[in-house]
């Protein structure tokens, strides 16, 4: 028995050392990936984002806002900090981490919001944080039941990669279509299939406004204003046939308007804009393709010029 225990401890110790080394190399390889999701976080953590305009939001932010267009129209530099599958609570995390590492406060913050942004956040696409769990400021936000991690992910080497293949998908598989971003933007190809009868999964239509997320949202907006940024909330285009299917849109839109008024921000609603009627601009009901993103970015940038001139 003693021999068995000694050998087990010996094997385990070697495994600990070996897995620590492997963890280091796996993490380094993932962080060196050309995929958009990884490159943006690397730019944030390496203090490479010091643009005048930053864009926050979910996958709609990722796909709809082309920094190259904003740069050319506004004369300001811009960077797209959108995150796939995230809601406002994780936008706030993104912003706080960005602020910690950025060298100066951006002049304009464009925050893309939509019908699901202020709902309960369930840790979707959390895998992207796997290589960054040792960062205290990121870990403190993830250490709650709705997220996919526990303390063992942070302290045991390689444990965080166990049964989480999606991080490898982000870093390597998805990189084929989502690689080498320009200031956080890659864009989507394709044109919407309007003959599809299934528009959304049933759960996508439901949104119960989360009061704690709403409170954090408002506090963050006030803080952004106090730090010297002008905030623009934008409900970017949605293919018009999908709009009537979203439950509670009027309530959500009026909530965003109210929050904007209370925090000294502005709210721009594109749901009735003509862009929404043109199927050539959409890759699917909730996402613009590259052509649509350029048209929308151009339109928004022009609308922001009066506010930019005040900065």
């Amino acid at each position, binding site marked *: 028995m003693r021999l*068995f225990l000694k050998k087990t401890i010996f094997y385990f110790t070697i*495994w600990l050392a070996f897995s620590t080394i492997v963890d280091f190399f796996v993490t380094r390889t993932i962080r060196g990936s050309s995929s958009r999701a990884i490159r943006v976080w690397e730019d944030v953590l390496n203090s490479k984002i010091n643009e005048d305009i930053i864009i926050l939001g979910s996958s709609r932010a990722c796909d709809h806002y082309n920094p190259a267009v904003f740069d050319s129209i506004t004369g300001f530099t811009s960077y797209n900090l959108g995150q796939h599958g995230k809601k406002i609570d994780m936008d706030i995390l993104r912003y706080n981490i960005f602020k910690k590492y950025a060298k100066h406060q951006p002049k304009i913050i464009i925050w893309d919001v939509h019908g699901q942004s202020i709902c309960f956040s369930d840790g979707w696409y959390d895998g992207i944080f796997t290589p960054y769990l040792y960062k205290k400021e990121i870990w403190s936000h993830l250490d709650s039941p709705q997220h996919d991690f526990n303390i063992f992910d942070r302290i045991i080497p390689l444990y965080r990669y166990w049964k989480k293949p999606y991080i490898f998908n982000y870093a390597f598989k998805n990189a084929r279509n989502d690689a080498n971003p320009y200031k956080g933007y890659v864009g989507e190809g394709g044109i919407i299939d309007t003959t599809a009868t299934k528009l959304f999964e049933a759960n996508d239509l439901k949104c119960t406004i989360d009061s704690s997320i709403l409170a954090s949202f408002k506090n963050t907006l006030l803080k952004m204003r106090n730090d010297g940024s002008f905030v623009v909330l934008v409900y970017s285009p949605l293919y018009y046939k999908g709009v009537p299917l979203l439950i509670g849109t009027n309530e959500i839109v009026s909530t965003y308007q109210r929050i904007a008024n209370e925090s000294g921000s502005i709210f721009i609603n594109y749901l009735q804009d003509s862009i929404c009627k043109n199927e050539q601009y959409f890759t699917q009901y909730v996402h613009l393709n590259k052509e649509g993103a350029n048209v929308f970015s151009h339109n928004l940038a022009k609308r922001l010029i009066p506010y930019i001139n005040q900065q």
Partner: protein
Amino acid sequence: MIFNSPEFLLFLPIVFLLYWFVFKKSVKLQNFFVVVASYFFYGWWDWRFLFLIAITSFCSWASGLLIEKYRASQNTRKAKVVNISNIVLNLLILGVFKYYNFFVETFFDIFPTLRNDHILISVILPVGISFYTFQALSYTIDVYRGKIEPTKDIIAFFAFVSFFPQLVAGPIERATNLLPQFQQKRTFDYAAAVDGCRQMLWGFFKKMVVADNCAVFVDQVWDDIPSFSGSTLLVAAILFSFQIYCDFSGYSDIAIGCAKLFGIKLKRNFNNPYFSRDIAEFWRRWHISLTTWFRDYIYIPLGGSRTTKAKIVRNTFIIFLVSGFWHGANWTFIIWGAFHALLFLPLILLGKNRKYTDNIASNRSFPTFKELLQILLTFLLATFGWIIFRSDDITQALQFFKGIFNKSIISIPMISKCFIFIAIMLIVEWINRNNEHEFQKQSRYRVVRYVIYYTIMLSIVLLSTQQETFIYFQF
């Protein structure tokens, strides 16, 4: 609690240390600890399940004593009544939880005007109920047959029924093998424990690397059959064959290896079934504990194959249909059983069902061309059966077959990286086909052993998917 979970990684060493260091003072104490640990393990799923396993265990234990008491007083009729009552009670419990809604729905399908949804019951299927019920039944039937003396030691009996490594998905142990091990002192065997650890490692590789990665592809295809070509459907069917094999045999390897850590020897449950040369050999190598259970407690009492041809046909169909039905309350399992019965019948009627009883190419490195063709044909037939088994209903199974057998079978299929894992698994299994398990024999060079073990552990960590449950938990 499942084997491939962080909770089990904590549970096992704690139980192991307590078992050998704290509770080794007496066999009774050690058995009591086994019961407590096993009930904790099982209750982790749902504590309400514990009542059922306790009732099953108690009824079977008490029945054993009653049977012996009546037999001792020459009252064989009462002994028979007790035996039958225990069988009926246990099967009733199993039937209510597993089959009630199926029978009611089938009745309503036949008589739709009588439909009344109020008599359907909302019930959770207790994990492993089919396994421990059969295990407990084997005890009372063996006591009735005089094969084993009933035990007065209720703790040892409860440990026999609930022993956590094999509780939820087998192997289904016989009392003649497992119960005596709980009645005598266990001593720690270093070689067995090390061998057990190796077997567990291989089991985890099969489950978490091979089976779970196959599942990703298989689920994707089965969720949207019409979208895939015939060749891709065939690939998915083949991958499911390996998924179910590696999932189930992986679990068995983990269970058997884990038991070795506690000085308990469980029976082998799989013997390289995909190297079989015909269907009869396949069924001697697949889920051995269940097939031998059906053979000993249903097939042979019905006359087996030592009877008229008509009865052989009847007995064969009964066995395979019951085996299919055991797997679940769905017509797909019954049709699957019937499919295998039809494949098996010609062999048994021609007296060729025991043609291949040795290991293939046991004295050679490679199979002959004829043997290779036999293996491929048997595998293909088994794969067609798995299509039925995997499908949600007969309609989906027919849709799958229709999808395979059309022009699109001559097209380039979607390929999965799983074939690399399967190739590695098959090579290891082929090389070790004459051993008790695939990792029994090891290199004498320590460095080589270390490299192999750590490579496997690394692959388990980095290549696992989010799949968690074992397929056979649903049975």
